[in-house]
């Protein structure tokens, strides 16, 4: 089991090293230009941006992130449940465990239904 973690560490190390190496190479190879005029634009050949990037966003984004968080936390509970469902079935508790999770999901779906009903899911 410790060996698998060594793979994770190796993977993370290679990932970080690749990113750093790529940025280093591009830093070495690229010609130096003064960042003036169109060079200083975010998109050199694209549309000119209007205003600052730190502008105020709609509150609707927050509610979508909120619903995502809730169903993301739900995964943390569903995953171990799915892992043991077969064991519970062989112990004669299969239906029980299944309906427990259905209740759990149903309670969370009430929250989604509330959001829908309040109209915050509408993207206008």
């Amino acid at each position, binding site marked *: 089991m410790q060996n698998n973690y060594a793979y994770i560490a190796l993977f993370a190390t290679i990932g970080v090293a690749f990113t750093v190496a790529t940025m280093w190479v591009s830093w070495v190879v690229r010609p130096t230009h003064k960042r003036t005029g169109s060079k200083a634009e975010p998109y050199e050949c694209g549309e000119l941006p209007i205003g600052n990037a730190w502008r105020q966003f709609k509150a609707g984004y927050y509610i979508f992130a909120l619903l995502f968080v809730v169903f993301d936390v739900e995964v943390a509970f569903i*995953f171990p449940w799915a892992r043991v469902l077969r064991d519970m079935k062989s112990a004669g508790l299969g239906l029980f465990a299944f309906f427990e999770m259905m209740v759990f999901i149903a309670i969370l779906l009430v929250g989604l239904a509330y959001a829908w009903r309040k109209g915050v899911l509408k993207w206008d």
Partner: protein
Amino acid sequence: MPFDLHSINLFDMGKQFVFTLTLQKISFLAVAFMTFASAVAVVTMKNIFHSLLFLVLTFLGVAGIYLLLSADFLAAVQVLVYIGAITVLIMFALMLTSKLMAKRVSQTMEQWIVALPVTLGILVVLIRLVVLNPWGMKAAPAGPTTGIIGTSLMTKYLLPFELASIVLLVAVVGAILLAKEDKSDDPS
């Protein structure tokens, strides 16, 4: 290694540290240093968006600590929920309250002169407790954790499990009520 007097104790810990620095301890020290350094960056950065980015690094370090404690499932949950969801939520909230990004708004209190002794006092108490208490526990070899967690959730912790969904439901309803844009008084 006996722990009786803490002056000797620290010295002993130092000696042990020099002599038995295994690969596991090296990885712990590396991960712990990364976690601590990025946590300090979280609380000291001038730009709050930068401290959010360092918060991601701190969460990643804590996930690494979970892996060292062979809590494989919790490490995955840490990455999934904290890095994948809560950080995104905080990021959206930062973007929604965008005047924070203005340079003239100061992010830190000037009361750090008071806060630092308080923090260090609590730290000294906690570290003394950790060092002086004879824990005397040895870690047994541990296997995969997901199955054990699932069985406990379905049997012994069934009621907290269902209550967790109700807590999440209440959180969703409350947060939607608070964050919903009122069409009547908000012309923009």
